[in-house]
């Protein structure tokens, strides 16, 4: 909110990409099902982009990070009251589904859409 009232503070974009100062942000990551040891039963896709969230949740939690108020309070408790209370964690906020074609144990072929397989944005919680 500070950035929205004080004109000289730049506002981050709606989806947080504070990677510049290792703030909590989304990191693209591609993996093959072969690497996961699942390629003997997953037919498609070959590659899977789960992405991941990484970064610190300190300082003023930017408005665009969609952090709940609790995260802001927990950060203050960590900094002002008790260091043993951990800082909020950088975790996925929005997810995308993934369609998978796989072979079942009985030999059937299954097309299935799995929810929550791709991290699309991050938050501090």
């Amino acid at each position, binding site marked *: 909110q500070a950035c929205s009232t004080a004109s000289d503070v730049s506002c981050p974009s709606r989806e947080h990409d504070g990677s510049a100062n290792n703030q909590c942000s989304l990191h693209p990551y591609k993996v093959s099902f072969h690497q996961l*040891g699942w390629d003997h039963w997953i037919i498609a896709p070959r590659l899977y982009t789960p992405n991941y969230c990484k970064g610190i949740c300190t300082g003023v939690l930017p408005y665009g990070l969609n952090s709940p108020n609790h995260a802001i309070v927990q950060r203050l408790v960590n900094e002002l009251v008790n260091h043993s209370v951990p800082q909020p964690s950088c975790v996925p906020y929005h997810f995308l*589904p993934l*369609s998978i*074609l*796989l072979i079942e144990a009985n*030999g059937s072929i*299954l*097309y*299935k859409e799995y929810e929550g397989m791709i991290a699309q944005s991050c938050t501090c919680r």
Partner: protein
Amino acid sequence: KAGWPSTALPADDPTLPSILDLAKEAPSKEMRQWPQGYPLRYMLKLYQRSADPHGHPRENRTIGAKMVRLIKPSNTAVRPPRGPWHVQILDFPLASNQVAYELIRATVVYRHQLHLAHSHLSCHVETWVPKCQTKHSPSSKSGSSKPPSMSKSWTEMDITQCIQQKLWNRKGRRVLRLRFMCQQQKGSETLELRWQDMTSLDVAFLLLYFNDTDESIQAKLLARGQEELTDRESSFLTRSVR
């Protein structure tokens, strides 16, 4: 890695901890044969129509279902000819119902044109249960173009009502039995038909379309919870009035 994909997990053991349900479906590494032939091609085309190369479900997908299962017959048996008809019995095992999914459509895709040993046959499928309502997909009946993933010699028959009314809610092991019947077309050579060879061919497979019932289950639970709440409140109110 914890080794769990490599151990065969009993797919529907309700006591499993909530691992990714993706892993629950993982067959063991010693899985039998990788699928091949037309069934695999059919599902690959279905996949390409429904998801982009990165695996993201397409916005304009027409599949209309969150899950589609292709089931091949587990057992095929040849019957003695019945007049001009050569008959083969196909048994399709239906896995147990998953709570989170409901069956919204069932079709059987089968070869209606067959070339065997210089003989040209035309075939159709009959359900084992009498008076079972089936209907062919409009594309094959009206002769207009088939769905893109369908090759010319295959056709699709909708058996949704038949399965839902006669089989789906039955308890225990459920097997859908179909009769695959072929007749030699006039003019094709009447050589002795090695019908026995049929059992090794892919002649038909079953497609079950499911939608995810999560939302509907939660909505039902919520509605029931609210009813209970209002009942309790009203009795409470009654009490307070007293």
